[in-house]
C-alpha cells in the first residue's frame, strides 16, 4: 500500500501547519478523539444518573415543583406491597433464569462444538432469538400463552402432558412467573451458548488427547478439563447476564405488564408504572436505583478479577 508523502506547499497557512503538527501529537490527538464520546457520556449518562439520585431524594411529580425529602421514598417503598413483591420477584426471576441459561447454555455449547452436519444452519437457527427484536418476539410468546388458543397447552394436551384445558399461563401467579422466565431463557440462551462455544474452541485439543490416552472418561474430562478452563468465560457470561436479566423490561412489559397482582413486576417495569404512569417521579427513581447495587457489584468483580490484565 503506497502512502503518499505529504508536502506542505507554500500556500498552506501557518495555522494549517500548526493543526497538522498538533494532530500528530498523541497528547493532543488522544483527548481530541475521546472528547465526543466523553461529552455524550457526561451529558446523557452521568448527568441523568445524578438527576435520578436527586429525584429519588425528592417528592418530584410530573408537572409539580419538587422538595427534598431525604430517604423518605426509600423507606416508603418498603411499606408498599407492590415493591416488596417486586423485590422478591427480581431475585426469583434472575436466579432461576440465569441458572437455566447456564446449564442449558453449557449443554448447547458442547453440542455445537461437535462436528455437526449443517453447522452453519444450526448456528443460525440457535442464534435467531437473540437477533429478533425482543418486544416483537415476545408478542409471539404472548399469543402462544393465550388463555383460549394457547399452542403450548394444545401441544401439552396432545402429548398427554396436561389435562384439558391446561393452565391459564398469564393469569395465574406462578404460571405467569414461569412464562416470563421461559421467554427470558429462550432469548438469552444464544448469548450463553455462542460465547461458551468460543471458550470451548480455545481449549487446546492436546489436553483432551492426553487425558484420553490416560483413560479418563468423558465425564472426567468434562469436570477436570473443560469446566476449569471455561471458568473465566463462564464468569463473564454469568455476570453480564445477571445485570441484563435483573434489569429486564421488554419481556415482562409485553407479556404480563407485571401482573397478575404484581406477581411478575421487575424493578424496571415497576419504575415505569410508578414513575410515568402514576407520575410519581421521585418514587420511580428510587425504585430504578435498586438496579444500581447490582451494577456496582458486576462492575467491581469484572474490573477486579476479569479485566485485570487489560488495565
Amino acid at each position, binding site marked *: 500500500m503506497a502512502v503518499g508523502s505529504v508536502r506542505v506547499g507554500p500556500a498552506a497557512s501557518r495555522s494549517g501547519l500548526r493543526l497538522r503538527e498538533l494532530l500528530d501529537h498523541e497528547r493532543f*490527538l488522544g483527548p481530541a478523539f475521546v472528547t465526543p464520546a466523553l461529552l455524550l457520556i457526561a451529558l446523557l449518562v452521568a448527568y441523568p444518573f445524578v438527576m435520578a439520585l436527586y429525584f429519588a431524594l425528592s417528592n418530584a411529580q410530573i408537572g409539580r415543583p419538587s422538595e427534598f425529602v431525604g430517604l423518605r421514598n426509600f423507606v416508603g417503598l418498603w411499606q408498599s406491597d407492590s415493591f416488596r413483591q417486586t423485590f422478591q420477584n427480581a431475585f426469583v426471576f434472575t436466579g432461576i433464569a440465569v441458572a437455566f441459561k447456564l446449564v442449558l447454555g453449557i449443554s448447547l455449547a458442547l453440542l455445537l462444538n461437535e462436528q455437526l452436519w449443517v453447522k452453519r444452519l444450526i448456528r443460525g437457527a440457535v442464534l435467531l432469538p437473540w437477533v429478533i427484536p425482543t418486544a416483537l418476539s415476545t408478542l*409471539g410468546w404472548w399469543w402462544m400463552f393465550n388463555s383460549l388458543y394457547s399452542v403450548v397447552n394444545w401441544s401439552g394436551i396432545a402429548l398427554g402432558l396436561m389435562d384439558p384445558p391446561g393452565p391459564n399461563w398469564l393469569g395465574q401467579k406462578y404460571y405467569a412467573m414461569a412464562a416470563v422466565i421461559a421467554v427470558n431463557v429462550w432469548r438469552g440462551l444464544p448469548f450463553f451458548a455462542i460465547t461458551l462455544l468460543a471458550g470451548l474452541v480455545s481449549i487446546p485439543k492436546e489436553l483432551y488427547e492426553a487425558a484420553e490416552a490416560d483413560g479418563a472418561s468423558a465425564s472426567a474430562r468434562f469436570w477436570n478439563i473443560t469446566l476449569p478452563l471455561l471458568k473465566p468465560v463462564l464468569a463473564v457470561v454469568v455476570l453480564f447476564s445477571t445485570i441484563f436479566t435483573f434489569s429486564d423490561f421488554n419481556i415482562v412489559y409485553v407479556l404480563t405488564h407485571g401482573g397478575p397482582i404484581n406477581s411478575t413486576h421487575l424493578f424496571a417495569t415497576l419504575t415505569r408504572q410508578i414513575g410515568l404512569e402514576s407520575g410519581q417521579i421521585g418514587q420511580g427513581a428510587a425504585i430504578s436505583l435498586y438496579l444500581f447495587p447490582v451494577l456496582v457489584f458486576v462492575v467491581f468483580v469484572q474490573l477486579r478479577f476479569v479485566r485485570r490484565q487489560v488495565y
Partner: protein
Amino acid sequence: MAVRRRPLRTKVLLHLAMLPFLAFAVFPFYHMTLTSLKTDRELYDRHAVPLLIRQGPTLEHYTKLLWETAFLTWTKNSLLVTGIATAVSVVIGTIAAYALARLKFPGVGTFGTGIFVTYLVPTSLLFLPLAQVVHWLGLADSKWALVVTYPTFLVPFCTWLLMGYFRTVPKEVEECAMVDGATRIQALMRIVLPMAIPGLICAALFAFTLSWNEFIYALTFTSSSDEITASVGVTSELIRGDIYFWGGLMAGAVLASVPIVILYVFFLDYYVSGLTAGAVK
C-alpha cells in the same frame, strides 16, 4: 491436526440431542409466521390444529397492516433513527477506540474504565431522568430524541468492540507508514482502518441491530403515531378492543423483524464474532 471421527451412531445421537434446542429456538417464529398467514376463521376455530394451515394461506393481514395502519410510517421512523444513530455511533466509537488502543495521554486508563462501566449500564436504569432531559432539549415526543439518546449505549459498545480489533493491527505497520512521512491521521485512514474493516462491519451491524431492537426508550420518549418506531407501533397500536387482532399483530411482528433477518442471513459470521467479542476479548 486430525479431527476426531465419531462413529455414525454417536453422530446421529448428537443430532437428535440438538433437536429440542432447535425446536425451542425456532418454533415461536414458525408459529408467528403461520398465525399471520391464517384466515380469521381458522385462527379462532378451537377445534383446528394450530400447527398447520388447512384453509389456504392468506395475505389479508399483511395488506390490512400495510394499507390500513401507519405501519409504513413506523418502519420509516425506525429506519431513520437506526440509520443516523448507527452512523454517528460508529464514527464516535471508532476514534475513541483508536485513542484507547493506540495513543498515550493522561487519563486514558480512567476513560477506558468509564467506557466499560457505561457499556454495562442498563437502559432501564436511566430512562426516567432521561425523559426529563429529552423534555428540556425540546425533543419530547419526537423521533429525534431517539437519535440523540441511542448513542449512549451504542458508542460504548462500538468502542469496546473496535478496541479489540485495533489491538490486532500490528503497531509496526502504522509506525512504518509514519516513518515514510505519513501523518498519524493518514496512517489511521489508509492503514489501520482498512485492516480493521471486519471490525467496522461488525460494529455497524451490532449498532444497527441494537437500535432497531431498542424498546424502552422508544416507548418512553415517543408516543404519537407519526413519531413511534416499528416495535412500539406494533406492540401498542395494533392491539384493539376486540379480540380478533392476532393475525394482524403477528403480521406486524414478522414484517418489523424483516430488516434484521435480512442482515442476519448475510452476515451471520459477523454476528457470531461480535457476540463473543464483548465477553471474551
